[in-house]
């Protein structure tokens, strides 16, 4: 015989159904709005990198801290154009933001700088990181 609804509230059943359904569908389609497995930071990494500017004194700063760019070409965004090099972890949209900043802020800067891929090779020891700067492009720019 059927029992009344309050013995098994339908919202409890429904809540569990939605949770399981979301996980099942997202696992199938991976990334299709509004389903996502949110796996963008799920992979292990032992390095980090940023597109950055290194000035003549060796100080490294954000590309967006500079303006009036004069460069011979665009930034090569491939993380390891030379296949003998190790590939560091990078965030493509951050790299692209740097490239777009440079394109949008062209001018007649006079200070010689290098655009580099600033890389941290992380060590398992506390706080340790080996730093490497791979030069991508030589430019002139101005720091406001």
């Amino acid at each position, binding site marked *: 015989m059927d029992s009344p*609804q309050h013995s098994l509230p339908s919202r409890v059943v*429904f809540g569990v159904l*939605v*949770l399981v359904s979301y996980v099942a569908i997202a696992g*199938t389609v991976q*990334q299709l*709005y509004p389903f996502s497995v949110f796996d*963008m930071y799920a992979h292990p990494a032992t390095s980090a990198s940023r597109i950055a500017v290194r000035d003549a004194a060796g100080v490294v700063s*954000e590309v967006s801290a500079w303006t009036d760019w004069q460069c011979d070409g665009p930034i090569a965004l491939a993380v390891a154009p030379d296949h003998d090099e190790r590939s560091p972890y990078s965030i493509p949209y951050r790299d692209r933001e740097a490239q777009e900043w440079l394109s949008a802020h062209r001018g007649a800067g006079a200070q010689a700088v290098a655009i580099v891929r*600033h890389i941290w090779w992380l060590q398992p020891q506390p706080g340790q990181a080996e730093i490497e700067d791979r030069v991508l492009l030589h430019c002139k720019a101005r720091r406001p």
Partner: protein
Amino acid sequence: MSFAPLASSYWDGRSRSFLRVGLAIIVASNLLGAAATVWQDQRGTWSHPMAPDWLLNLGGSPLVGLLLIVALLAIGQFARKPGQLAAGALALVTMALLVEADGALNEGPKRHFFAPGLALLGWLAGLAFARLVAWRSGHARADQTAWQEIHAEIGAVAALAGNYVDAVASKLIHVGPGWANDTTLRSVILSHHPLGDGSLAGQYAHFIAGSAAASQVLAVATLIVQGGACLMLVGPRWRLLAGLAVFAFHCNVELLADIGYGPARMTLLLFCLPWPLYLPRLLRRWPRAVAYFAVSAPMTAPVVSRTQLLRASALVVALVAATVVTARALPIRAYTALHHSYSGERSGPRPQP
């Protein structure tokens, strides 16, 4: 067997208009953001190589304005009255079109738009499920409306929880508990946080990035908080606790890695805070708003048999199974697998479309 503690909500006995209107406002702001992005975008080297032309052609097209108008009207109708399943679905489909167009034009979808969309999907699924369960129950329309919005609320919360359960499942599937090592989180922080940031947030990020132990503690906390999101289904106090923990997680990620997820945070606060306890005080100067939002809505639940409930649940399971089978048969995964495909430790140039 009683599930009463699981089943309660701060909103029981009250109108859920505040939740519905709040969700509509968040979705509307997302619609504006997504439409503005697609309007400014053009097909280019960052466009998805497999994206269909009709999706890429939305970039910079006047059709974006038309879609936006339709979606805003639909979400407005959803907000205005309870039970607006078709209007909500129209807004959701339009939002999906805009977000997918942006993703096709720009290497991948912006996931900060996802949480409000899936809360809306959960809400709409709740309306549909309640109608299905209470089919021909003969109750008054007002009772039916309250009954439907009870399910809409839990549907939205369950979908939000699924979002975070999926995030932790991805980490555990790809790496296992070892994801919470002493380098992964440092890598994310260093790759995102602005160089030379001397602010308090910058000093905090610098400290965590430089401390293997502290970053590992935060990585373990990430797994616990994201996995604990499923507790949002276990009554209002657990929902508050789990929701605030996830909110705090997002705030910490913003401080460390400059990744905001504002729409997700707003959606969490909307559904997890005990607003019915605050609203009469917060709105005391606006009696009309109190009359609209803080109104009580006692309900006599339709008498639903276990058989009705099981039949409706079986139908949902069948629909989800059919969706999964269909999605596997279509080349969706081949398409979505290329989103953000150059994230991580990559090499070589990006292939051109």
